[in-house]
């Protein structure tokens, strides 16, 4: 492992904003999409009762 401590890991060699921005955007999108689909499904099922 190349990291010496948590601080260095989160600093990403000075690229923190870009690296965490990229991974954060992907994580957010890939959590929101399934959540929206789940909401849509619940609404569809509710409307059918």
């Amino acid at each position, binding site marked *: 492992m190349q990291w010496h401590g948590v601080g260095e890991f989160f600093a990403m060699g000075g*690229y923190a904003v870009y*690296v965490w921005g990229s*991974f954060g955007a*992907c994580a957010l*999108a890939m959590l929101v999409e399934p959540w929206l*689909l789940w909401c849509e499904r619940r609404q569809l099922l509710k409307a*059918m009762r």
Partner: protein
Amino acid sequence: MKPLHAFHFASPATFYPLAGRLQPLFALLALGLAVAGLYVGFFVAPTDAQQGDGYRIIFVHVPASWMSMFIYCVMAFWAAVGLAFNIRLAAMMASALAPTGAMFALLSLLTGALWGKPMWGAWWVWDARLTSELILFFLYLGFMALQAAIDDPRRADKAGAILALVGVVNVPIIYFSVRWWNTLHQGASVSMTKSPSMAQTMLWAMLLMALAFWMYSIAVALARLRNIILERERQTEWVRHAMAWRG
């Protein structure tokens, strides 16, 4: 085996429960592969000699870009099948894939910008690779907007299919853009014709993340397909029956 066996799942009524059973399987695979990919990407793959730790963006950028192109091809394939054989489920499959493909095209552009700023000094350039990927994003949006604008779902399917098929020419343009033109975007590090030009562990992280994104796409496409089926077939006997059984 009956000759019709392969077509058994081509009906929404039979595919709906199958999709429901497959969906958690693919979701679980996506999660496991993502955990493995993130571990290799952040704790095993070394810092790059030229790009420092900024290069780690490729672990999401490349998979997102690959998926945006691959999903478009799959979407166009199902659209063509739906159009040629008049299969409702195939057309629904195409519609179910479009929003996820659009999301990956957007993520590709966004993570590309976040890589471009520190490495090139620009968020965006009108490079052939970047521009054709932007067009791909607009093709997805166009497909969804067109389908949303037509009330009759079967007519919407047909119109969308034509658009999807015309737009498919853009995919090879994106893929080969770095070879056909002098682009600022670098050439392929991984291709089918030569061995990859990157460290093994970096390659592994990228491939694991690509597989994770792939499994994720299948899981959400199945979930959306189930929603589309429910919405379009809600008047049918089988849906009512299934709902009554559900309680």
